[in-house]
């Protein structure tokens, strides 16, 4: 199916199942322990041994020697593979930066340098601790983003976007601010660590039961890393215990399990210990963001500059905090530039809403500061600078209702009743403040395929290598197929995550829901054609599929009678035409937050949150709500507590467990209110829906930060806004 023009009125505009609050299909399985995660796939391969990883104890340098004698002699040990046993394996894909295994060169702390395979987990772990490693560490390597920024900030770089004469416009602006904001590195901190069961057969085929968001990428990456035929690789990942981008790509668990299995001649399972997740895999890079805004006397932005600097391993792309600033607000002149501070921290790569999540932490605080400079209501300031075209590209937004998000949100939140003098509302021990922020995140779509199999009993089995990373894919694909085929949702079985299934979009960049449901719809359209043919029609036009029947004129045929002797299989994929790229397809939100800040201690507690989202058709209000409130929780963490602390001399994320990397707990999160605007975006896809998985995070931290300022009068420009950054500005005791 080619999606080459904007969707017209179609079956999804009279939905019976799509758009309904259908409960998560995987919910009961997960809450009762019947959804096996990768490490629990005990039944997929017999004779599983257990692997345990060893990570480098230095961040940069070389390994001189590894003594495995004691480890090899330890009880239960069946195989050991060390990084010195081979040359560096190829980097798995262009989207990876770090090598995952092999060679004597150490690029970052906890780089995988050995795997020990034993009969039990305890034996493998104990033996791993017996390996003695001699290093030649590079002295004087630097891991301090702020220090690197100071050195490079005055060196000119070619701007990514330069529209008009920013410098002149800024210099002549009636009002202006010039501020620098800092975000620290963050970890995805998903509950399920990376884990893989690997098994080779006698023909050199490998199967990897793993936890991954992008099955096709994983399959190709395994083939590239092991320099083998891609058709000899199978990847299976039906349940994923959270990903947030940390599982977009294969990591060393896949490589170590496969190497261990080959060496031991038996299947091997391996899960990353939590500290290893923090330092071996990927993180969201820290950023330093200089933002300059100039406006005319009425508050129209005449000049906007956003310069972002982030950390990355050499050759990587860091975190581009500037993307939203090219498109979000009307700006007569623009200057967008990025710098990369190369250093040997672990690999910086995508984490939920890469770019915007960090960039809006800067931009939305700057918008608040600019509004204050102007003496304008921050909601009004954003409304004044609303735009229906991207100032950087000149492209029109396909559908943009950001102004409604702001005005309806302000109304619902009671924004007009807020205190406008920072630091002047107190209830007992608590200083009370309110903040607002806007949110913007593109809603891309990508080719996605599916296979539908109409069974003799009238049920349908859907197969696609799409993943459900806790987002609701199983559910919304079932809804889409049930809607398209006019069936009960109970009669639709969805199978995901197996590379033997048709290639899908996968889960990432909030493109999964739009793309994979469209792919399932494409397959259903093919099936409808085939059903039509079976009842003597050339195509499905004019046929009606409802209540488990297909109706042609006065003749109604139950689907159960269509393939009595077997199944009918139809497969197709959706391809999104270039017309979609002629528009800016994006999602928007406004977030409103009330905080209390303890006047004595500076502790910040969020008291109320409201998010108003503009994301096209909401396919399932329950799963979409879960995505947004989960994003809002992550935003509170980003604002107030989440920082993987860098030991800037050793290059180690030192608070590398879930006790010390503080994600919000239940007690931190108040009642969260989410409103979805009833919008449709026919340019986005046949279902006129857009992504919400990343939108829910965007802008939240900025709203919290602005509320903290409103409460205290202290403007903390370095996230996370912990109490030590507020103490000096709190009322005297």
């Amino acid at each position, binding site marked *: 199916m080619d999606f080459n023009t904007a969707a017209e009125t179609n079956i999804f505009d009279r939905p019976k199942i799509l758009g309904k609050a259908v409960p998560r299909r995987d919910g009961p399985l997960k809450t009762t322990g019947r959804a096996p995660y990768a490490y629990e796939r005990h039944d997929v391969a017999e004779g599983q041994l257990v692997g345990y990883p060893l990570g480098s*104890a*230095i961040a940069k340098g070389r390994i001189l020697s590894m003594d495995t004698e004691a480890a090899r002699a330890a*009880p239960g040990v069946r195989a050991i593979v060390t990084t010195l046993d081979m040359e560096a394996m190829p980097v798995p894909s262009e989207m990876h930066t770090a090598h995952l295994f092999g060679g004597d060169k150490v690029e970052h702390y906890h780089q995988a340098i050995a795997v020990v395979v034993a009969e039990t987990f*305890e034996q493998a*772990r*104990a033996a791993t*601790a017996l390996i003695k490693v001699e290093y030649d560490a590079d002295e004087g390597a630097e*891991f*301090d983003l702020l220090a690197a920024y100071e050195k490079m900030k005055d060196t000119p770089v070619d701007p990514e976007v330069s529209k008009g004469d920013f410098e002149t416009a800024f210099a002549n602006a009636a009002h202006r601010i010039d501020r620098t904001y800092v975000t620290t590195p963050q970890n995805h901190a998903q509950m399920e660590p990376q884990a893989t069961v690997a098994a080779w057969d006698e023909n050199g085929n490998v199967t990897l039961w793993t936890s991954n968001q992008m099955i096709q990428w994983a399959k190709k990456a395994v083939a590239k890393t092991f320099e083998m035929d891609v058709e000899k690789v199978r990847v299976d990942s039906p349940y994923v215990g959270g990903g947030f981008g940390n599982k977009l790509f294969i990591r060393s668990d896949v490589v170590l399990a496969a190497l261990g299995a080959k060496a031991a001649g038996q299947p091997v399972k391996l899960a990353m210990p939590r*500290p290893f997740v923090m330092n071996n895999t990927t993180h969201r890079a820290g950023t330093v963001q200089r933002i300059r805004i100039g406006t005319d006397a009425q508050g129209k932005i005449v000049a906007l500059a956003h310069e972002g600097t982030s950390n990355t391993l050499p050759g990587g792309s860091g975190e581009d905090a500037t993307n939203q600033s090219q498109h979000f607000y009307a700006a007569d002149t623009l200057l967008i530039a990025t710098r990369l501070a190369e250093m040997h921290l672990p690999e910086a790569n995508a984490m939920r809403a890469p770019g915007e999540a960090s960039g809006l932490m800067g931009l939305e605080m700057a918008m608040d500061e600019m509004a204050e400079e102007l003496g304008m209501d921050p909601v009004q300031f954003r409304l004044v600078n609303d735009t229906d075209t991207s100032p950087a590209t000149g492209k029109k937004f396909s559908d943009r209702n950001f102004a409604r998000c702001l005005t309806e949100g302000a109304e619902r939140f009671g924004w007009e009743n807020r205190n406008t003098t920072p630091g002047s509302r107190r209830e007992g*021990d608590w200083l009370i403040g309110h903040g607002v922020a806007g949110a913007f995140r593109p809603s891309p779509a990508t080719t996605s395929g599916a296979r539908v199999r109409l069974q003799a009993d009238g049920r349908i089995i859907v197969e696609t290598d799409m993943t459900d990373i806790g987002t609701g894919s199983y559910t919304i694909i079932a809804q889409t197929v049930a809607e398209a085929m006019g069936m009960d949702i109970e009669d639709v079985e969805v199978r995901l995550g197996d590379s033997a299934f048709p290639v899908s979009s996968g889960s990432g960049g909030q493109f999964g829901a739009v793309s994979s449901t469209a792919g399932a719809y494409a397959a259903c359209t093919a099936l409808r054609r085939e059903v039509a043919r079976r009842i003597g029609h050339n195509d499905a036009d004019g046929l009606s599929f409802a209540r488990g029947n297909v109706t042609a004129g006065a003749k109604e045929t139950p689907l159960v009678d269509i393939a009595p002797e077997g199944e009918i299989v139809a497969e197709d994929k959706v391809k999104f035409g270039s017309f979609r790229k002629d528009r800016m397809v994006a999602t928007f939100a406004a977030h409103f937050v009330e905080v209390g800040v*303890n006047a*004595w*201690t*500076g*502790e910040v*507690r969020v008291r109320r949150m409201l998010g108003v989202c503009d994301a096209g058709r909401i396919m399932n209000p329950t799963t979409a709500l879960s995505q947004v409130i989960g994003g809002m929780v992550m935003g509170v963490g980003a604002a*107030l*507590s989440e920082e993987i*602390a*860098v*030991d*800037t*001399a*050793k290059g*180690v994320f*030192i*608070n*590398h*467990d879930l*006790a*010390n990397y*503080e994600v*919000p*707990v*239940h*007690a*931190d999160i108040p009642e969260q209110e989410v409103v979805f605007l009833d919008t449709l975006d026919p340019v986005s896809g046949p279902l006129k829906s857009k992504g919400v998985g990343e939108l829910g995070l965007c802008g939240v931290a900025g709203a919290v930060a602005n509320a903290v300022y409103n409460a205290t009068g202290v403007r903390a420009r370095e996230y*996370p806004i*912990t*109490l*030590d950054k507020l*103490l*000096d500005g*709190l009322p005297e*005791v």
Partner: protein
Amino acid sequence: MRAFSYEKVKNPAGAAARAAEVANAKFVAGGTNLLDLMKLEIETPLHLIDVNGLGLDRIEGTDDGGLRIGTLVRNTALAADERVKRDYPVLTRALMAGASGQLRNKATTGGNLLQRTRCPYFYDTAMACNKRKPGSGCAAQAPGAFSRQLGVVGVSEACIATHPSDMAVAMRALDAVVETVMPEGETRAIPLADFHLLPGHTPEVETALKPGELITAVTLPAPVGGHQSYTKVRDRSSYAFALVSVALIRQPDGSGAVALGGVAPKPWRNAAADKLLPEGAKAVMAELMKDARPTEQNRYKIKLAERTLASALNEAKG
């Protein structure tokens, strides 16, 4: 984790004797800290002596009107005890501010006192740590280190780790005494003030316990009344160790006791500071923090402690 042997013991003196005679033995009760540390090979005992069967799990009155808390009383049970809630509310509040419900159900009174620091450098065996590996250095004080959560007072060049307990801070304000039994069967009573040691040059030595010596109970003196509070300040609302905590007992005449958590290698209190309570938080904290040697990253704790005490005093006066 290293392989280890395991036994259950029947009586306290026998437990102590076994611990003294078996090389590299450790007691295990709730296991909420020890087992984690064993998995990471920070603790590497060769033998575990399970004391859960010793029956030391009762809370009973003492002759002088106080309470004797068996070493195996779980944190949840202790916090919920009616006598504790009524007569020693600072202790209930401190316990409920600690860990999580699941951990409090397992963690014991004696084990809580003996838990190890949460310094991140202690937890990463690739890092220098004098407490974990004497003589290896203190990575937490090296240039570039992350020390925001570490100690500011009572610390040394060898170690700036804090003691993580909330319970112990309240017990310190209450003048608790630790009762023990020795391998030879004799018993002794150690004031909690003397139980935890400052690191000095030997941060690996954390308590006054002798080899094999087993905690059997913690006793509290007769109730002192007054307004009692435990104020724990942290970056998130639950399941986090204190940046600063303040256990306060304040009598109507303004006298009382104050002990701090989150700032030192042991619950931090001194008599001179207590005497200054009527003069307010600034005077008390000047005394408690007089020998402070903070890092750039944790200097804020000094101000935070003063403001937290001021908050607690304000509430007590309210």
